[in-house]
């Protein structure tokens, strides 16, 4: 067992885990943060996407020990924007019907939020390219693209 200390959604956490423990299992099984999902075992689907020091990563390809001492944000850590019920990306998904079964949604939302923090006004092509690593089987993606555009247009400027 190895001790890892990870700041998750702004809270310091520490657990003794087997060295092979993946970050996604650390979040789900050690911390009970089950919003991050597992959809494959080959890092294709992106359902497990979280932010590691602000960057989108697939938490099934990161060992918990690799995140030792780092900052992780999961879907549970997104905060509502001023005057909105949710974070602008979540709000966009709600307004534009960007989710159906909702299983890919947390990973998809985290990937979209990371995109918008790098590029506040992405084109449709840029959005589709940025989401290439996140699979959705329900929507056909168009409404997800529209959701991201909605978020881009409604994100309060700092």
């Amino acid at each position, binding site marked *: 067992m190895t001790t890892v200390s990870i700041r998750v959604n702004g809270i310091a956490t520490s657990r003794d885990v*087997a060295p*092979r423990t993946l970050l996604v299992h650390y979040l*789900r099984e050690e911390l*009970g*943060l*089950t*919003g*991050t*999902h*597992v*959809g*494959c*075992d*080959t890092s*294709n*689907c992106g*359902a497990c996407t979280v932010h590691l020091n602000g960057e989108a990563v697939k938490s099934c390809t990161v060992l918990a020990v690799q995140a030792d001492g780092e900052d992780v944000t*999961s*879907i*549970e850590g*997104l905060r509502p924007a001023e005057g909105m*019920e*949710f974070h602008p990306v*979540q709000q966009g*998904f*709600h*307004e534009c*019907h960007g*989710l*159906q*079964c*909702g*299983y*890919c*949604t*947390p990973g998809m*939302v985290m990937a979209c939020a990371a995109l918008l923090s790098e590029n506040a006004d992405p084109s*449709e092509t840029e*959005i*589709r*390219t940025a*989401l*290439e*690593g*996140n*699979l*959705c*089987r*329900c*929507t*056909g*993606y*168009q*409404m*997800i*693209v529209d959701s991201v555009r909605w978020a881009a247009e409604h994100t309060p400027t700092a």
Partner: protein
Amino acid sequence: MSLVGAAVRRKEDPNLLVGRGRFVDDIVVPGAVFMMFVRSTEAHARIRSIDTSNAMGIQGVVGVFTAADFGDLAKIPGLPPELAPLHRSVLAVDTVRFVGDPLAVVVAEDRSIAEDAVEAVVVDYEPLPVLASIGASLAAMADPDGPRIYPDLATNALPIIPEAERDPAFDAAPHRVNQRFVNNRCSAVPIEALAIVADWGPSGLVVHASFQAPHHLRNQLALFFGIPQHECRVVAPDVGGGFGTKICFYPEWFLAPALSRLLGRPVRAAQTRSEGMVHMHHGRAQENDVEVAYDDDGKILGIRVHTYQDLGGYPDPTGLGLGVLTSWMSCGVYAIPLAQTAVTAVITNTTPVAAYRGAGRPEATFFVERMMDIVADRLGLDPAEIRFRNFIQPDQFPYAAATNPEAVFYDSGNYPAALDELKRIMGYEQLLAEQSARNADPSQPLMGIGLACWLEIAGFGPNGSLEGFGHLGSWESAQIRIQPDGTALISAGTSPHGQGNATAFAQIAGDELGIDFDRISVRFGDTETVQQGIGTMGSRAIAVGGDAVKNAAIQIRERAVQIAAHQLEAAPEDIEVANGVFSVRGTPARSVAWAEVATAAFQPLSLPEGMGAGTLDATVFNEVSNFSFPTGAYGCVVGVDRLTGEVGIERFIVVDDCGVVINPLLAEGQVHGGVAQGISQALYEHVQYSESGQPLTSTLVDYLVPAATDLPRFETGRVVTPTPVNSLGAKGIGESGAVGSPPAVINAVVDALSSFGVVHLDMPATPEKVWRAMNAPT
């Protein structure tokens, strides 16, 4: 303003958006152990021995079990008794029949220990001849001593609909054309794979499963274990996509409860994607020999089809039914006077095949719509023109299809209107002109235009339609109960997994009851809290379940109006309800709020004579008189790279007619998702096996589930022809996109390749396949 027809935002979203959804693997049960299958690595073999000793030595392993430990368990239910030799056991007994076939199960303290233990089990196989395709399995039949996958059955093929004697009209027709179609095997790939938590305690069995029909599973689990239904609870919580594959019975649904009973601990399982790719039942996997007779004007005079349905290694009840649905739909939207269809189901050493979005109808649509183009091409007719010449006309409904005039009555439709609308949105004539210019310019990708006028059978269904698949009935149920504060709680027998039923049902009930959308909640998916139910599949949730909600709401409204009339001292026929208020028609000042009526409903002293407490509670078991037949016209424009053969979709236009739309946002979402799966079947997806039955596409690295970059933006239009078979006029839309889009894509690809003399390409139209078609020696 009416809620029905409005693009209301979903009730389902908030929990799912913030990570507070509750999927099966999210459920924490104290003391649970994890189970994982040991799977066959051989496609067909006798099991000589299973050595579990190394696995048992791993710390944290609770047990390793084989079929011998479950000899007293029943077989997995669903198949008719006459197919007894084919009934599947929860673990393979003596023989494995496909790669991935579970032959032992490991139970451990957690999932990583279970994975280690699975690797440590040693299986000794005696290989048997492998029949990994329809062709191989049928070829083996030619030899009386050839291999049989079920020796007790003496055959690898089940005649589902025998071939009829050839009607002389075919040979008398001016023209005939034959074509063989291979409908590629697909995997549904819901992003949540199968998961279960089974907890068998002193007070009974509780199962949480990622499933589309919890009451169905409850009924069958109780029978399987011989326990009373009131001590057997099945919950389908949030379910991460289904697409038909989660309506099937899998070994873990029965084995996890058996292990929980045996071990006295909750047992959980959550398969990995690689397991899911070989374990979750596949779809399509059909071959169709089609012959069409036609005259000089392009009128189709008759169609003859022999469908071969790959069943995989263990027949699934829905798998057995797929070919029948294909047979029924073999005339599509056309007035074809003569249809002769036959279906043979073939057992092979592959993963079982069952329902996948469309389930039998995409296959029929594919060959019908390809054949229309093939005939048009032979006669030099425009593909739109030949369709107009053959359409069933709007005044011909109800229309008895020649495929089965006793069972298949098209309810309503306006097929010419849908194609007209498609042509208008496409700018069809302009596209044709653009195509001639582009295809003459070697610097540009080849351009192809494809049409598909599709039809599907939905709204399952009329009495008798689902019972054959093992369901208790074909009705759907809804209960509405008004709370004392005037809010409404709906319990629905459907079990959605993304369709947005909570939103749609609240819209339907809101309109009937005059209760605000936000004051209505909808519950599903739990046999303990929902009266009874059938489930969500077969494009039935709105057409049968939504109609149940409407009918229950009408009953509630009638009773509430009586209470309001009593309170307002008016005649019930003068009472109207809207926006949470009952008022006397013409004198709106005389009014009473819904909350007051609701409270009165629980206070007998406030009720009219003859009415008792709790009257605002209604349960409806809704039966429908017929299937509904959603339809539409889809258009596709492709560009084919002349050097690489890569197909790019430049435009995809959908005109749907699903009758009355409850929520255009939800309807469009269903169409987009279905079209995405259909385009993907046409261009990308293909479950493949080697000749020795080894799966070649068992991870998402090898099996292409499309990403956002692989799919176009969709242009949408709509025609509305209400169905007379339910009070909503809604036809169902869950499967439409997957039915209509594959032939639109392939018709466009073949059109682009017409200068190479290409008549047909089977799916998926991969760059290699298209390149070979362009470079075939002439």
